[in-house]
């Protein structure tokens, strides 16, 4: 079955126009960079009827990775470790500098695609300590956990964990008075690991509609339609628009690996602060694989963890859209990023800037022709 149907988009838009009640405001939040890619790339916001708004929440794990954890990674580089991490992490600016700067100063920082690549690095460099700086939500935490649970790990391999769990951040948002959200579009790929059920407490405990959605434009629009219908009916529930991919109970081997390798802990989110039960820490019995224990590196969070003038915290909480930041597009661009949301490919500012530039380039080209 293909889910791509040219007519479907206009049908769903027509249904949305019918469903959206005049005078009612629908503020629907997604928490996934990939959803923002779909929405921005296809210009979906411009198709939505008046009164219906889709806003981006804290859906970028690189963006919320706090400076003190990057500082720990830089410290390990300076002590001579090979530090392997994802490409987006390297240019993340912090008060401690960036990993790119640590590399330029002679440190050994390697970009990898997968924790498996870090494992290969460790096997090939038996005389060096290899630390994988593990950043990401549940979809990344599971692979890292699987690696940690494996037998025959090279002795020189450890992980600096900066994983975050998505649901507690969404719960926190609901408690912030001036963040007004009427429904959540839940992230499809996170849900393939956690299962759709992980979102059930939102309708049950907070009367908050949730629809798990895929990443085609039709997926996102259908999710919006389902949320609008739930709001109109006053019956908040959990629906799974992406059932063709997301199982209701989650991926058993992945969840079991997470549970074996990690324990739930509170964690600091850059620009947001400490969120209870939102982090994962390596279990003490695997202590030797936890780079913080192994090298006794423990940096404390800083209250002011964004550069001066940066509004990433407001962007991540859905309080403003990127162009409302005074730095956006002027002192902060993908080639010269100031804040974390402009660094990562999953950051809201990066995504907005990328597609806005493409759109204006296309317009300019059209005008010249």
């Amino acid at each position, binding site marked *: *079955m293909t889910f791509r149907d040219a007519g479907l988009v206009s049908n769903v838009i027509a249904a949305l126009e019918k469903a959206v009640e005049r005078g009612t405001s629908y503020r629907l939040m997604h928490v996934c960079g990939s959803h923002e890619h779909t929405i921005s*790339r296809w210009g979906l916001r411009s198709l939505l009827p008046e009164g219906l708004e889709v806003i981006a929440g804290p859906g970028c794990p690189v963006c919320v990775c706090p400076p003190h954890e990057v500082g720990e990674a830089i410290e390990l580089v300076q002590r001579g470790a090979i530090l392997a991490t994802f490409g987006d992490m390297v240019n993340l600016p912090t008060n401690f500098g960036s990993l790119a700067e640590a590399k330029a100063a002679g440190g050994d920082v390697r970009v990898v695609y997968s924790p498996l690549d870090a494992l290969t690095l460790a096997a090939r460099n038996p005389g060096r300590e290899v630390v994988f700086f593990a950043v990401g939500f549940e*979809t990344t935490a*599971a692979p890292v956990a*699987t690696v940690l649970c494996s037998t025959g790990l090279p002795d020189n391999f450890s992980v600096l964990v900066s994983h975050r769990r998505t649901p507690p951040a969404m719960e926190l948002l609901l408690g912030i008075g001036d963040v007004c959200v009427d429904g959540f579009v839940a992230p499809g790929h996170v849900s393939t690991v956690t299962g759709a059920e992980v979102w059930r407490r939102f309708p049950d405990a907070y009367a908050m509609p949730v629809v798990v959605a895929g990443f*085609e434009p039709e997926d996102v629009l259908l999710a919006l339609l389902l949320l609008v219908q739930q709001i109109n009916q006053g019956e908040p529930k959990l629906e799974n628009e992406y059932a063709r991919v997301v199982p209701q109970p989650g991926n058993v081997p992945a969840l079991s*690996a997470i549970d074996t390798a990690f324990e739930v802990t509170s964690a600091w989110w850059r620009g947001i602060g400490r969120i209870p039960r939102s982090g994962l820490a390596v279990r003490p019995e695997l202590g030797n694989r936890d780079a913080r224990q192994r090298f006794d590196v423990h940096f404390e969070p800083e209250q002011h963890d964004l550069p001066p003038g940066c509004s990433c915290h407001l962007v991540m909480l859905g309080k403003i859209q990127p162009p409302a930041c005074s730095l956006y597009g002027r002192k902060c661009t993908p080639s010269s990023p100031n804040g974390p949301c402009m660094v990562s*490919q999953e950051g809201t500012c990066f995504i907005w800037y990328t597609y806005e530039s493409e759109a204006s380039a296309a317009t300019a080209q059209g005008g010249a022709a």
Partner: protein
Amino acid sequence: MCLAVPGRIVEVRTVADIPMGTVDFDGIRKEVCLAYLPEAAVGDYTIVHVGFAISLVDEASAMETLAMFRELGVLDGELEGAAPAEPGSAAPAVDP
């Protein structure tokens, strides 16, 4: 880093008790861990995140997503640093 990229499984094998496979992403072949999808078979399309297959997907959806990533120029960047397909490369051995 967070993009989950669809690809076609072209080879399945077991390395140190772990199901591993080679996945073709629009011409780029990579080693992928199949521990989360023990039922995956050659010819299946799967969504791969950081080197792990996280779910199966139908061919048409996979092709469309791949075409979009290719058009956006993010495919090579996303797979940056990934180990090329190489039988016998490092694979985790997971305790049962």
